[in-house]
Structure formats: structure tokens, C-alpha cells
């Protein structure tokens, strides 16, 4: 008996923490700060979100614009990142020549490239897509590289002992073994891609979630700011979880491989 009461108390801790946090936030906003340009109550934020979703419905164009850029950037990053990662894993020469540039591009805070890209391409869709692309290409590329290199050590011998042709070696061994790594790369790329979206829209756009946040920040419109940030967080979590599910579906054997 004692134990089960204790168990209930334990499982309640998380909801209690969330609830009391929200209450504290509300109290802080309405009784302590009391300044709508500094902090607003979560109730106000929820009301604003409801309004933007169901009454004025003015969140959707932003959501649509941002999703579109995001998707294009991700697809481009996959199409470019995976082959380069593979090439680097399969050819030491390619790796050695590409490596210094990759490291430079990868370790530089991505936002540094945004003004340069805007300078070259102007404020249009292509520039934004490229900024998103730069954000998410590296996790994809690096994971493809590692995936391919890990398998090339473990399983290539098996393929060679069965005298598979180069094509079969790639299709039957290298590619399937890299799939979970590529998907893991995509999963990591979601967050960076969203940051890319925010940066891109922030620099020059008239719609999109990044624009919404930037605009709300400039005009000290805290309810909209909170809603924008929340939508970003939700998109990030959804994208991440979606890719988790895809990973599990695409490679039921993955856990075994990754544990080793």
C-alpha cells in the first residue's frame, strides 16, 4: 500500500512541476512584473495562439511560408550531403581535399554566411533556401560519411568474400547499412534547419515564422513573440519525433547495429 501511494506521488511529479511552473509564471506576470512589454501570463499567450489559429487564422501564411523553405532546404541538403558524405568515405583523396573547406564551413557560425548569401542572391526564395541548406547539410553529410565508413570496415569483407560486384556491394551492403545513419543525420538536421529558417526570414522577409518573431521582438509584442517561439519549438519536436518513427520503420534492425 505504502509503496503504491509513493509511486503515484512519483509519477505526479512531472505534471506538478509543469503546472506549478505555469502558475508561478502567471503570478510573476500579473502581480510582480505587471508590464505587458516585459512578460505576459501564459493565459494571454494561449488566448493569442487560439486567436491566431482559429479566429483571425493569420498564423497559417507564416507557417506555410516557413515550412516551404524548410522542406526545400532539407531536400537540397539530403541530395547534396549524402553523395558527398559517401564520396568522402569511399575515397581518401576526396576526403583529404574537401576536409579543410568542410571543417571551415562547418565550424563557422552559420549566421555569418547569411549576409553574404543575401548579398549575392538578394532577398528571394533561393537565398533563404540556401541559408536553410547550409544549416542542415552538415549533420546529414557527416552522418552519411560515418555510416559509410563504419560499414566499409565491418561488412565489406563479407561482400568481397562472396565476390559481389561493385554495384551489388554498394546496393546490398554499403547503402542499406548507411540508411539508419542518414536518417539519424536528418533527425539532427531538423533543429538546425529550423534555426536556418529563422535566420533567413529574419534578414529580409515579409512573412514566415522568423519574420513574425523578429517583428514581434521589435515591437515588443510579447504574446505574438511567445506564440512564434512555441510554434518553432513544436515544429522542432514534431520533426524530430517523426524522423524517429521513420527510422524505426525503415530499419527494424537498427538498434542492434547501433548498440554494437
Amino acid at each position, binding site marked *: 500500500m505504502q509503496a503504491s501511494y509513493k509511486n503515484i506521488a512519483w509519477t505526479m511529479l512531472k505534471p506538478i512541476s509543469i503546472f506549478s511552473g505555469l502558475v508561478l509564471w502567471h503570478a510573476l506576470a500579473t502581480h510582480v512584473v505587471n508590464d505587458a512589454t516585459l512578460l505576459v501570463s501564459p493565459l494571454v499567450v494561449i488566448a493569442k495562439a487560439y486567436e491566431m489559429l482559429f479566429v483571425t487564422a493569420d498564423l497559417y501564411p507564416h507557417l506555410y511560408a516557413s515550412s516551404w523553405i524548410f522542406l526545400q532546404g532539407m531536400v537540397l541538403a539530403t541530395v547534396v550531403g549524402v553523395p558527398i558524405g559517401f564520396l568522402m568515405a569511399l575515397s581518401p583523396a576526396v576526403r583529404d581535399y574537401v576536409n579543410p573547406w568542410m571543417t571551415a564551413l562547418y565550424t563557422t557560425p552559420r*549566421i555569418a554566411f547569411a549576409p553574404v548569401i543575401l548579398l549575392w542572391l538578394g532577398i528571394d526564395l533561393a537565398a533563404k533556401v540556401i541559408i536553410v541548406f547550409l544549416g542542415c547539410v552538415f549533420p546529414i553529410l557527416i552522418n552519411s560519411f560515418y555510416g559509410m565508413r563504419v560499414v566499409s570496415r565491418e561488412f565489406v569483407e563479407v561482400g568481397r568474400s562472396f565476390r559481389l560486384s561493385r554495384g551489388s556491394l554498394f546496393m546490398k551492403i554499403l547503402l542499406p547499412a548507411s540508411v539508419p545513419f542518414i536518417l539519424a543525420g536528418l533527425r539532427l538536421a531538423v*533543429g538546425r534547419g529550423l534555426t536556418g529558417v529563422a535566420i533567413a526570414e529574419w534578414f529580409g522577409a515579409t512573412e514566415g515564422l522568423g519574420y513574425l518573431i523578429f517583428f514581434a521582438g521589435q515591437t515588443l509584442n510579447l504574446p505574438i513573440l511567445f506564440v512564434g517561439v512555441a510554434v518553432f519549438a513544436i515544429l522542432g519536436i514534431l520533426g524530430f519525433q517523426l524522423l524517429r518513427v521513420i527510422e524505426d520503420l525503415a530499419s527494424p534492425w537498427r538498434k542492434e547495429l547501433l548498440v554494437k
Partner: protein
Amino acid sequence: MLSKELRRGLVSIFAGLALWEILTRLLLENELLIPPPSSVLRTLWELGATGQLNKHLLATLFEFVCGFSTACVVGILFGYFMGRYKWFDDVMDPWIATLYSIPVVAFVPFIIIWFGIGMVSKVIVVFKITAVAIMLNTAAGIKNIDPTWLELSKSLRLNPRQNTFKIRLPAALPYIVTGMRLGVGRAMLGVIVAELMAANAGLGYLLRDASETWDSPKLFVTVLLLAGMGMGSFTLIKKAEQKLAPWRETAEW
């Protein structure tokens, strides 16, 4: 005798720079779009001579170091307790996880509204980003400790202090360093974003200044400086990783 790898890397860099210089000189009428490396270098020199370079570089570095070092202390401390005590993890996790999943760019406006456009807000941005990453990773490291080691600790009758400092923390060290590595990259982005939004000094400020005045050599200098800072901090972290957790294979990037 340089290794083949290094030789190829150097060849690749010099060839790239030479190509860039030649192409920009031959093909482009004005230097607005892509200044040749030589004029980027000249601008770098000029910025250094006027003391501007020092000012902005030091501002960013200062913000970064302050935020990062406090984040290490707080992150490890909280992460440790999150890993050890389930109730604490339950209380903290919803908030930390939420903070973690908000893109860097999205919460910077808040920090600026709350803490102003000075250095404090940037220190807080760096702090928040790094602390969260270190916290989550430290907690994971403490949770994932091999139970055999805990039994070993018990059978050797280690006291709680020894248990913490000789078994649990060393076991979690690779995770902690991973948290730091993840934190550095995102924090660098965060500090630049914050400076870009509202600041009166720092590399982010310089970036904005250069792009608003269409001063492309200056823009490229800033990008170069940021690349240098990125690679520098990355190399440092990698070195630290090898020193702190030499039993672990470190990531190449």
C-alpha cells in the same frame, strides 16, 4: 615530412585561395560581390590598425568565456543531480527539454527585451545554450553508468565523496565533454545572433554594420574572423576531449 593528408589539405586550401584571387581579378569589375583575398587581407590589416578589430573580437570573446565557464559549473552540477535523483529529474526535465528544443534564434529576442542590449544579455544567451546542453548530457552520463562500476565502488567501500569523484563523474566525463562540444557550436551562433540583433560591439555587430553599409571586404573579414573563432574553439574542445577522456575515440568533427 608532412603526412599525405595534411599535404593534400594545404594544397586544397592554397589552390582554392589562388583560384578565388585570380577569378575575382579577371572576371569581376567591382569588388562588391566577392572581394579577392588580397583586399580582404588589406581590410583586416586596416581594422587591426585602427583598434576596431581588437574591440569587437574581445567583446565577443569576453561574452563567450563568461557565459561558457559559468554554464560548465552550473550545467555539471544540475546535470549531476538530475542524473542521481529521479525526483529532481522529473521536476527539471520538462523545462530543460523545452528550453533545449527552442531554436537559438527564437529566444534571443526575449533575452534582449529582458536584459538589454549590453554584454549581459549575450553572456546570458551563451550561458543558457551551453548550460542546457551540458545539463542534459551530464544527466545522461550519470544515468547510463555501468552498474558493475557502482557495485565495484560498493565492494571497495568507497565513501559517497569518492563514489562521486572517482566513479560517477569520471564515467560521465565523455558525456559532459560531448555536451560542451554541442554547446560551443550553438552558443557561438547564439552570441552572434544576439549581437546582430542589438549591440554596440562584437563580431555580430560588425557583421551587421558591414552588411548594412554594403562594405563587402569588411563583411568577408568578419566572416573570416568568425570562421577562425569557430575553428579555434572547435580545435580547443577536441584537444580538451582527448585530454579529459583519452579512453574514448573522439569525433573527427
